[in-house]
């Protein structure tokens, strides 16, 4: 067998690159992070025929020379790693723009295969592409594919072994390219990264003039900038490079493509958009879609939850009958409980929830939702892209916090991650629903949701004063509506679930054991005693709930069951030992107070210790205030 051949997939967002990757490798992929960043890429090893391939799905990017984190890490990856073949996946329906990235990539002189994906969509748009011309002009093999149907994928695989070096089309002809300062900087850069050509080094120097790529030292950058503005009188050399690239791409597009017919009628897409993007009907339909999703998740979740919990409840009952209650049994029961909360509580609600979100995303609705929400979020110092993590938060806060990585700017990313723990996840929703149904009424639950949204808005507004920078401009491509593929949906589901399984679940099980041991060794009595002044005098709650609230941090979904155990009363009869005022206070406090341990760890990982501590402190503070106010409101 030969050595492993390293293949990198590069393409623009929405080009179907990930679908193509799924078709290439199936479910064998695993995620990795680019060193020192939160940007992820997928990786898989596959064997085709006699060769072993390592296939890397780099993040979707519009340009190698941009300053978004994903763009920067992809560029770095290309420069610092030895890649044998690049598969450049293009959305054929927006060919001219897609070719701009191709031209950038081609200048790196790595063997390439061009994949014209979404040929069906291009055809629908009346775009007829002559692949032969592209092949001749670029000097590389060009394959037409429809990745969603798997068409053409095997052809690409067969070509991997003899991918050819692309012709370099991007040459800077502008007069500044022979300027001494730029040649000097380019040579320095090339000395550090011998893989790249001098031409590429020049382009990188110019692209780095604002310091966003981190290739040039600040003195080098200043000198280069000065020579551009003073000697050459060029304000924005980057623009010149872009224009050059754009010109080449347009020429390639025009030579290789014919537009058969221009659509005269409104397309189906525009028709749907005239409802979903309408300033009045848009928000209304968004609300309906979200409500329908929550309703279905509640229905499906409730049904699955009862079924999935059966074996764990059976085991739990058997263990309870054990005489003498030895410590081993206590730990086994705790582990069983922890497993149950994953399989019996989180999976039934969380899996359908992510599945719905993934469908909405793959259909193309989520970016439209971001468009509708942009104004509102903008006023809170956020922007449209925060919507997806927020919605995910209602499922489980942990993957929601991780999903903030899609937001490029630190300001909006940190604010969004900070706000997510305030969103009641499925564990807290279950408590709110249960207590509302039994004692507090539907109106209370509704009021609590509104209150929750208002609190989140106020905190967002407050945080926006911490940051000095302006809100980043909202610029988002709106993809055409597409039919999701099962493979795509399942791979999304799997990667979100993995965050829960590998990150949140072990913490829940560990928390469960700690909790059981505390009760076993009667430490709970001391804790209840220590916290009873706070509970009794400030919140006006039954002091036996102290342990419940403190260790609800470990396992929020158990807060209600624990309350019932601590008070030695079944949940439906809680009103016999707690007043309605106490139940309302408890519900409000549980909704808002400190995020669970898994969320705290996720937040720490994504935003750092300072923000995490601030989040814990502020949520405790807010929960206390609101709980006290609820108590007062219910006293009348």
């Amino acid at each position, binding site marked *: 067998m030969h050595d492993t051949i390293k293949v990198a997939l590069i393409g623009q967002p929405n080009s179907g690159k990930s679908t193509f990757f799924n078709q290439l490798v199936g479910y064998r992929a695993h995620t990795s992070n680019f060193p020192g960043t939160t940007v992820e890429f997928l990786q898989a090893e596959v064997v085709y025929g006699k060769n072993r391939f390592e296939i890397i799905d780099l993040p979707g990017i519009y340009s190698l020379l941009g300053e978004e984190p994903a763009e920067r890490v992809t560029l770095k990856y290309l420069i610092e790693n030895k890649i044998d073949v690049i598969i450049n996946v293009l959305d054929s329906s*927006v060919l001219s723009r897609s070719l701009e990235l191709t031209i950038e990539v081609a200048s790196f002189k790595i063997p390439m295969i061009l994949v014209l994906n979404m040929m069906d969509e291009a055809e629908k748009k009346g775009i007829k592409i002559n692949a032969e011309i592209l092949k001749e002009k670029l000097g590389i093999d060009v394959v037409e594919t429809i990745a969603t149907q798997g068409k053409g994928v095997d052809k690409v695989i067969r070509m991997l072994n003899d991918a050819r070096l692309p012709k370099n089309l991007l040459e800077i002809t502008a007069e500044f390219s022979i300027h001494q300062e730029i040649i000097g900087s380019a040579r320095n850069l090339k000395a550090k990264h011998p893989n790249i050509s001098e031409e590429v080094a020049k382009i990188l120097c110019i692209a780095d003039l604002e310091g*966003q790529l981190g290739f040039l030292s600040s003195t080098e950058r200043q000198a280069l900038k000065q020579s551009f503005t003073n000697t050459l009188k060029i304000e924005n050399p980057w623009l010149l490079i872009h224009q050059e690239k754009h010109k080449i791409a347009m020429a390639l597009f025009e030579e290789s493509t014919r537009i058969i017919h221009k659509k005269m009628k409104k397309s189906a897409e525009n028709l749907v958009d005239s409802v979903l993007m309408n*300033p009045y009907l848009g928000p209304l339909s968004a609300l309906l879609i979200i409500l329908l999703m929550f309703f279905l998740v509640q229905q499906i979740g409730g049904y699955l939850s009862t079924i999935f919990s059966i074996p764990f409840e059976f085991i739990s009952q058997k263990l309870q009958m054990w005489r003498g209650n030895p410590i081993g049994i206590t730990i086994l029961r705790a582990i069983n409980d922890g497993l149950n909360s994953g399989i019996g509580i989180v999976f039934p609600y969380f899996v359908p929830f992510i599945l719905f979100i993934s469908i909405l995303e793959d259909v193309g609705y989520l970016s439209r939702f971001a468009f509708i929400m942009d*104004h509102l979020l903008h006023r809170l110092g956020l922007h*449209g892209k925060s919507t997806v993590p927020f919605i995910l938060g209602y499922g489980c806060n942990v993957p929601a916090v991780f999903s903030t990585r899609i937001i490029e700017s630190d300001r909006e990313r940190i604010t969004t991650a900070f706000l997510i723990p305030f969103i009641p996840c499925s564990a807290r929703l279950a408590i709110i629903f249960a207590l509302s149904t039994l004692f507090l009424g539907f109106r209370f639950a509704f009021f609590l949701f509104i209150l929750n949204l208002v609190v989140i808005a106020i905190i967002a507004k407050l945080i926006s004063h911490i940051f000095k920078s302006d809100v980043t401009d909202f610029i988002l491509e709106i993809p055409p509506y597409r039919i999701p593929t099962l493979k795509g949906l399942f791979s999304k589901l799997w990667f979100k679930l993995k965050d829960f399984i590998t990150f949140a679940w072990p913490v829940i099980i560990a928390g469960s054991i700690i909790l059981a041991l505390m009760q076993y060794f009667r430490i709970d009595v001391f804790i209840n005693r220590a916290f009873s002044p706070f509970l009794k005098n400030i919140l006006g709650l039954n002091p036996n709930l102290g342990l419940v609230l403190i260790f609800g941090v470990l396992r929020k979904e158990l807060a209600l069951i624990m309350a019932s155990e601590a008070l030695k009363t079944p949940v439906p009869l809680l009103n016999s030992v707690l007043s309605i005022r106490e139940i309302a206070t408890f519900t409000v406090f549980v909704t808002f107070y400190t995020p669970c341990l898994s969320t705290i760890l996720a937040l720490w990982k994504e935003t750092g210790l300072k923000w995490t501590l601030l989040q814990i402190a502020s949520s405790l503070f807010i929960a206390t205030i609101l709980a006290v106010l609820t108590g007062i409101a219910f006293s009348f």
Partner: protein
Amino acid sequence: MSLDEVRIDDVVIVRDINAGHRALRRLLSLGINIGDRVRVLHFGPFKGAILIEDIDSGVKVALGRGIARKIVVEHARHN
């Protein structure tokens, strides 16, 4: 005139983008180029974002009001 002042369904030509380098790079790499013909498709609720279609590159892009205000356009000649 700036892009946020254009009426729905009107086709205009992008003349200039007065944005910071970050937003400028983003717009250009998304396929919104100076000289392109652009159609305004929808306005978001409460004077929110704007949805445009770049006729030359075939790309649909949602833009916040702030950035739309920085894009200078003029009406395409009727012919």
